[in-house]
């Protein structure tokens, strides 16, 4: 059984009168069990040079297989750039087939979140694809990993 951990540390010595320090470790397990997630996309890297919206995680063409929906998948995405002025918008397709914006990743920012990965059709009508939209035509590279079962 694979054992994968995700640890976060949030720290600030001066955002408040007292130091803030939040630390947490999650063991990435399959849905409803203590068995570790055993599949991954591996670390991937894509570079974008336009402001068009692109499918970063395309559920209809995901490594020639279908991610099991509504389980315990996790997604990590990082903007490897250094610009604090330009960002990449990250969104998820909702059940109505529209893009629901999650947030903006500026240079150096990362995000880690659970992913239901609901797949409905090859037409992407209501697939929970993860889409990204750079704010600039300047080259920007995202790194990402999907852990799934």
């Amino acid at each position, binding site marked *: 059984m694979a054992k994968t951990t995700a640890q976060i540390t949030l720290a600030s010595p001066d955002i408040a009168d007292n130091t803030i320090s939040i630390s947490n470790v999650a063991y990435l397990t399959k849905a409803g069990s203590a068995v570790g997630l055993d599949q991954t996309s591996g670390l991937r890297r894509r570079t974008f040079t336009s402001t068009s919206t692109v499918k970063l995680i395309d559920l209809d063409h995901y490594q020639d297989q279908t991610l099991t929906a509504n389980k315990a998948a996790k997604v990590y995405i990082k903007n490897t750039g250094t610009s604090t002025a330009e960002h990449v918008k990250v969104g998820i397709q909702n059940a109505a087939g529209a893009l629901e914006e999650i947030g903006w990743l500026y240079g150096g920012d*990362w995000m880690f979140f659970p992913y239901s990965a609901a797949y409905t059709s090859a037409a992407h009508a209501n697939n929970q694809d993860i889409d990204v939209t750079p704010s600039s035509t300047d080259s920007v590279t995202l790194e990402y990993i999907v852990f799934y079962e």
Partner: protein
Amino acid sequence: MATTTATITLASTDLISDSLSLSSTTTLYDAGTTTGLTQYDSGRVKIPGDNNIYILLDSTAAAVNKGNRVYVANKNTEDAHYVDILIDEAVLGRLYAGDWMFIPWSQADAAANLEVRAPNEVNTVEYAIFHEGRTFTGA
């Protein structure tokens, strides 16, 4: 200006044939600047296990397209317990017992609330939001 950092470490010795070890640290800035975020809210709440969608964090006009970052952790310990995490009723995923998440949250519009739904069991959730400001409601 405050300095707040968020560090993630992803590690596994046996998920793939070689060890996986990835670490990344980001400093939490106001949107589009190198000025550190200066405000935060945090809490610990029990989400009713009635399968209704509840607003954990309310989208606010002052925070639209700002540098908001959100941390949420499910503090339950039973493996089968989870809360769905949603934005404007669009499901991101299931946060199982012991899991945490950290995302930028642009609060794109007034409906883009960060929501939770616990289908079966009461789940205790801890959260923190680092932000540039919020719109206060008059008394």
